[in-house]
């Protein structure tokens, strides 16, 4: 698994599909630049996490089965969204416990690699910063930090970039308050959490914050926009492409 493969499958996630497709394209471009063939199965939809976390497991299974189907094979599955990666790597086993697909779920789980983890631990990527000076912070999602254990990887990627100054916001490891249906069911608590998160980021006086999870980005950017703050998030794949001269034509 830690050997550099010739081919990977990419699971883009439903949020990237509809809100941040460029992050997906940049992830693909970056992988291809490293000499990896990237296959994007067109039948993929959503990992099933929204229903799973809401307690609707039958419905989550129905959707997850489609991913089990379209992500078959032996190639690693690279996921540029840590919470979907965590869903497929850790929670499919629970979701398909005592189900006929239990084995298929375990097989897929073993092949899931989060995007930054793939770049750092599998590709051992070397980056040449070509951009101007910039000050950024990282928001690692809770799934990235505590389920996928990849909070270190995203920072180590940024540390390779000479003109990028990485600063650390207060309460950096704390949840941004998204939590899927939590943001709707406990909207006030969620709003209080994201308000603290945006305040901490704004205090850093950064140009951008970088993340590997689009759920958090939707939440934090949404709050920043409604506060009319100019700060926005950038997906790590997009940021890396931008800094290493890969985005010239897009």
């Amino acid at each position, binding site marked *: 698994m830690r050997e550099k493969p010739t081919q990977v499958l990419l699971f883009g996630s439903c949020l990237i599909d509809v809100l941040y497709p460029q992050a997906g*394209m940049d992830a693909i471009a970056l992988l291809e630049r490293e000499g990896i063939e990237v296959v994007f199965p067109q039948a993929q939809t959503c990992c099933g996490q929204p229903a799973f976390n809401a307690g609707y497991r039958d419905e989550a299974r129905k959707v997850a089965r489609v991913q089990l189907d379209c992500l078959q094979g032996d190639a690693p599955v690279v996921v540029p969204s840590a919470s979907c990666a965590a869903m497929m790597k850790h929670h499919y086993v629970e979701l398909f416990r005592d189900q006929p697909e239990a084995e298929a779920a375990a097989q897929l789980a073993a092949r899931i690699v989060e995007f930054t983890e793939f770049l750092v631990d599998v590709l051992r990527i070397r980056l040449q910063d070509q951009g101007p000076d910039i000050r950024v912070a990282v928001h690692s999602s809770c799934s990235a930090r505590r389920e996928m254990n990849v909070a270190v990887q995203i920072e180590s990627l940024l540390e390779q970039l000479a003109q990028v100054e990485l600063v650390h916001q207060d309460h950096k490891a704390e949840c941004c308050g998204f939590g899927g*249906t939590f943001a709707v069911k406990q909207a006030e608590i969620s709003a209080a959490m994201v308000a603290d998160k945006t305040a901490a980021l704004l205090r850093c006086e950064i140009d951008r914050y970088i993340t590997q999870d689009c759920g958090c980005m939707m939440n934090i950017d949404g709050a920043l926009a409604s506060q009319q703050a100019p700060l926005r998030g950038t997906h790590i794949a997009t940021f890396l492409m931008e800094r290493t001269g890969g985005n010239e034509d897009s």
Partner: protein
Amino acid sequence: MVTKTVDFSARAVEALHNARLRGSFRDAMDDLIRKRLDHFRDETLFRELSGEGAAIRARALSRLPELLEQLERKLVSNGITVHWAEDAAQANETVLKIIRAHDSRRVIKGKSMVTEEIGLNDFLETRNVEVLESDLGEYILQLLDERPSHIVMPAIHKTKAQIAELFARKFPEIPYTEDVDTLTATARRVLRDAFRSTRIGISGVNFMVAETGTLCLVENEGNGRMCTTIPDVHIAVTGIEKVVEKLADVPPLLALLTRSATGQPITTYFNMISSPRREGEKDGPKEVHLVLVDNGRSDIFANPDFQETLRCIRCGACINHCPVYTRIGGHSYGTTYPGPIGTVFAPLQDGLKERGELLSASTLCNACTEVCPVRIPLAGLINRLRAEYAAPRGNVKDAGSGRSWKEAMAWKLWSAVYARPRLYQRLLNWGLKHRDRLPRELAPWSDSRAMPVIAEKSLHQLVREKSEADQ
């Protein structure tokens, strides 16, 4: 004692506007987090220790009925009387009976969450038994007629100034001061007098050792030792899950407990009670009773999906690290045990109808799971309970009681779309094309957040276009 969870959300919203919770409360939590971390900076070390803690607790639970029998035999042969209580009412009656047998009208208590759980104080007071709390935090709350908001630091929701003001009101002979030592000394003086004149002491228990019949009590103020040594009768009240196999299991659990709870390598006091006063001994109670409370625990024990909950050693770390608790405080939960452990324990104990609403008070961020010294997968259990709450069938009391047809319908629709890749893409493309016509506001999301901007083309489309161009 607990309040109904119904209206949890309303209480939470109110708490969000509470000045203490908006202000120094988070600092207090941060302080606890830092103190714990000072001991566990080395993650490997923590993983090792918590692995051992989890194994000890899991081993004990795997033999729970057997260990409880062994414990009872040992305790009895040590001269300790053992009482079994199936529920809160039985536990309370048992305690009352012991008090009445000694013709007593007054008890002094050390800190005990199980007695909170069974509502012992209210029960005794309505039966003309005066109860005096001797833990400083509990004492403060008793003066205020409030409930604990945290399982380790019951009065953490109070500021120093609030406590100073309370003491100035209750003890007008003492000048107003915010000095913690002076306040503590005042309380100590009142309590010392009470210890001398009260014949019945009540305490909780942290660990019970089956091998030796020993009751272990962890504390910092010395009031626990006073409660269990000065009065003639000591009544210990605790849950049946607190048993461990052997004495050697205690040091690792103790090390985890104190570091996780208050960031101390060891507490000021650690009491091991193994019998009443023996002939020739100078102190100790003449009688020791242990009331073993079930109150729903054997149902949790019998449910393999949730048995892990009973590993809990009540350190409170999950509570201190919970971003939701930090913002709404313990009282919002309306349960004896707040925060993540309460969010799991309360629905299992009281049923989902009464407590299911709590399950929404989590982002499943796993901050709790990460710090639990006995590796209870708290977020995973909350997720499992959500499934029990929403599913048409399940193994937990009132399974399915959280299922609303509207929600069920929404998820059915969702899965009908996302389980059909072609339908999904058709609808997605339609949505992207009409993105300007989608609602710009959708409460409650848009109350504090702008709606996300829909892309022009989906990733599916972009990938297709790219591969066509590449060819």
